[in-house]
């Protein structure tokens, strides 16, 4: 049976005003990255983005807001918008990614049609203080537990190539394993001149080793190649899928341009894979 690759689109619906100091993130106000900043997009604009994503064969659609935590004042807006997106594209696996969140907030999102919540652990608990000093790793883990307890599907992964050791990578994947998420985004750190992380880019060989290890440790999870796919692998991405990737982020990332959707789809098909018609 032909392997099918799932496509997921992300929509940065509130950009560039995060007060946390995560060293990998261009949306932190601490780093002064030259990015576009805006307050909440309108519901109409987000629905339009969702329709475009579906036309580009995405089966997942993720609404992302900058900031450490889901703010109560945004919950009502997200609920209204989730209902509108679901009405426009009912077949979507609708994902929210809005930072740390309480069970009550998550239940409200779920009741409005959100299917999944994305909250990455980012890196190992031990290495996290080297990456962020404004909040702790345990807060992130707690939110993932909250997601699980509400019955929302959990999407949780991390970023590789931030100067962490192999042991950190293994510990991160072991932590993800304890959460048993539905899907695991694997990001490869994308350099930006404003960011304080001075590291060599991860090599394709290192990235493939991570994917293979994650595949072995997380056999029941959907493994998604997310940020850094193009910058790490260029146009030779077949080994990623052979190593166990079964989903990718298509289109633009939060603040970085992605490959055009048409090219990505053609690339996947040229490798002999199909494009998934729904999110499993």
């Amino acid at each position, binding site marked *: 049976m032909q392997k099918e690759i799932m496509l997921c689109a992300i929509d940065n619906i509130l950009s560039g005003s995060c007060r946390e100091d995560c060293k990998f993130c261009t949306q932190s106000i601490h780093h002064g*990255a030259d990015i576009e900043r805006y307050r909440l997009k309108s519901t109409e604009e987000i629905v339009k983005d969702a329709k475009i994503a579906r036309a580009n064969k995405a089966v997942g659609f993720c609404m992302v807001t900058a900031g450490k935590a889901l703010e109560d004042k945004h919950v009502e807006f997200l609920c209204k918008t989730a209902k509108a997106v679901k009405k426009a594209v009912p077949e979507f696996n609708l994902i929210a990614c809005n930072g740390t969140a309480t069970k009550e907030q998550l239940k409200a999102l779920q009741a409005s049609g959100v299917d999944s919540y994305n909250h990455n652990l980012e890196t190992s608990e031990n290495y996290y203080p080297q990456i962020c000093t404004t909040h702790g790793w345990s807060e992130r883990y707690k939110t993932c537990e909250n997601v699980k307890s509400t019955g929302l599907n959990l999407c949780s992964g991390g970023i590789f190539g931030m100067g962490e050791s192999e042991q950190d990578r293994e510990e991160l994947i072991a932590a993800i394993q304890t959460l048993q998420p539905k899907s695991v985004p694997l990001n490869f750190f994308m350099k930006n001149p404003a960011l304080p992380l001075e590291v060599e880019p991860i090599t394709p060989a290192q990235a493939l080793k991570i994917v293979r290890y994650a595949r072995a440790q997380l056999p029941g999870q959907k493994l998604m190649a997310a940020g850094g796919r193009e910058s790490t692998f260029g146009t030779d991405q077949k080994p990623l899928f052979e190593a166990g990737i079964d989903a990718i982020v298509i289109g633009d990332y939060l603040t970085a341009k992605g490959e055009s959707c048409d090219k990505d789809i053609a690339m996947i098909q040229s490798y002999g894979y199909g494009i998934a018609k729904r999110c499993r």
Partner: protein
Amino acid sequence: MPDEPLLLGILSDSHKKPDLTAEAIGELKAKGVQHLIHAGDFSLEQNLELLKQSGLPYTAVFGNNDNRLIEVASSYSIYKEPHYFKLDGIRFKLMHLPFYLSGDTEVVIYGHTHAFECEKRGKTLFLNPGELCARNKPVSEYAMLEVTVNEFRVHYFAKDLASGGIKEQLLTFERESS
């Protein structure tokens, strides 16, 4: 853009007056600004640090007295002039010297003259918030730009150093590209 107005704190020409810069930032934060914009001439890194410590996103350019800050630029959101950026989809051009005064964005912000200036030419709002440092007069000046769907509302603030009183003047302009 969202229904709630976009509130921006507009500052320039701090020179060697971090106390006045801090006071203006405090006043603007109390008014609920969401982003700070500084048109240069910090003179001291301390003034730049005040923007960073504000807890708000900010955008700044180097002025003609900021050469020594170039070596610390990587720690701050400070750019060479003219710097183009977008907030809520609105295009801004920010500079220190009033040199690149073409109306190629919806808002053009500059400094250097130490005098408040505000006018709309064509579709573009040109705004100089005046001097924070009170070098040319005993008044520390700054502004708040309130952007609604249909209007620019420019609030000009002048703090009298002797009395501590703040005078406010409001100028309203219709937006044409909304």
